[in-house]
């Protein structure tokens, strides 16, 4: 799984590319994998204000709608106009062509709450470990059941 070095990451699985006072925002590879095929993206308009930790849009998979949370506060400068016609770009290239919005930040201090690539990689491992633990528990249960069945046949 990819965790590009030059980006900052939020707990809600958004990435931020900082260039001067501007922040480009998208969702991470982990997020798009969890979502599955993206079929629709709801984005704010240029000029709108987004507020840190509040939802600023939504990303929709075949089955469900997921909010996207603002990792920083700011004013929308640009939105990716490829996404309305090709929402699957988010699956194909989440860190590049799948970028969502670019904002002018209100306060660069907002960036302090975001994680580095290493920290985010660890955070994702944690999430996966939790999933794997559940799966291991299940596998143990299944194996126990099979052993019990074998015993019954005897």
């Amino acid at each position, binding site marked *: 799984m990819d965790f590009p070095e030059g980006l900052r990451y939020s707990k809600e699985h958004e990435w931020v590319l900082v260039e001067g006072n501007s922040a480009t925002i998208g969702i991470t590879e982990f997020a798009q994998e969890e979502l*599955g*095929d993206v*079929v*629709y993206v*709801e984005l704010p308009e240029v000029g709108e204000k987004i507020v840190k930790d509040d939802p600023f849009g*939504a990303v*929709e*998979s*075949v*089955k469900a*709608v997921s909010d996207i949370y603002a990792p920083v506060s700011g004013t929308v400068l640009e939105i990716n106009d490829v996404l*309305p016609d090709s929402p*699957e770009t988010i699956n194909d290239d989440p860190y590049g062509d799948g970028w969502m919005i670019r904002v002018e930040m209100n306060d660069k201090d907002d960036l302090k709450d975001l994680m580095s690539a290493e920290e985010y990689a660890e955070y994702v491992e944690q999430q996966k470990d939790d999933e794997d633990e*559940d*799966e291991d*528990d*299940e*596998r143990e*249960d*299944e194996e126990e059941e099979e052993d019990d069945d074998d015993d019954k046949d005897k």
Partner: protein
Amino acid sequence: MAQGLKKTALHAAHRRAGAKMVEFAGWEMPVQYSGVIDEHVAVRSRAGLFDVSHMGEIEVRGPGALEFCQRISANDVARMNVSQAQYNLLLHENGGVVDDVIFYRLDAERFLVCVNASNNEKDFSWMRQQAGADVEVDNVSASYAQLALQGPLAEKILQPLTGLALDELKAFHFQFAGVATVRCLVSRTGYTGENGFELYCDVDAAEELWRRLLNAGAHDGLVPAGLGARDTLRLEMGYPLYGHELDDTTTPLEAGLDWVVKFSKPAFIGRSILVRQKAEGAPRRLTALELVEPGIARSGYGLYRNDRLIGRVTSGTKSPTLGKAIALGYLSREAAASSDDIDVDIRGRKTRAKIVTLPFVRR
């Protein structure tokens, strides 16, 4: 999440294949393997293999079996020959749908009823209640696994594995046959709109059958397909899903399933209500919608005309085949009488949709 959920015989195989699992009707089922759209496209252009073992099977037998089946359902079961299958609706006294099911006529006095996973206990208990002394009703779900092989290449993939002459098996008919040495009930039925088969086999043989089918079809691009694709495929056809378009309060006439109700047959539960509805018009009507402004309609969203609430969405998605957002929803009788555009309330935003006829996708 895993604790307490039922698992089909293929659960381990799904996990090994890297399937994303979800809870459905008390079962842990594969929602996707390679991706919902990928699997959907595979079924429409090649073939997909679904594990639908979570569905239930109820056997009805005895001298009173035919009369019993007729009484509890809307369609004319007497028209079924042995080896025929029939889509049918079990009805409440008030005309509402208990479940949508498939009947299989195994013999003059023996029927197998395939029921929705979510209604297994409900259907069984209701059928037992309705049964007289001359009919036996048995829930045999635990002994059956069920696989669905669907797509234009389904027959080509299946034929080498069985001695059954598939080109002689008509739609909504079935035969017992060996498939890859596994004894199956092979029926030409399905929930995708594509040509295909549903294979019922013993639980203990399911893993072998699954593996053999996937191997046999690999060369033709057969892929395993999950519940995500199952839903987008059926919605493109306009097929109802119990719990969405159908529930205990919806009648067949409201749901556009008039064709299933055979008023000419002798008395059946719910008949008088439906006779009246047919004469007066059903109080609401299931309607097919296509969004003409950006957005996707989801189950539960309100439907409006001139700012008046006239109904609700029951199912919606973006159609992989059409690339458009499609939906099914109920409109009041009044509203359904007009074919003017309506608005879907998508999380606070009124989004224009037009009324269309089913199916969304023609096969």
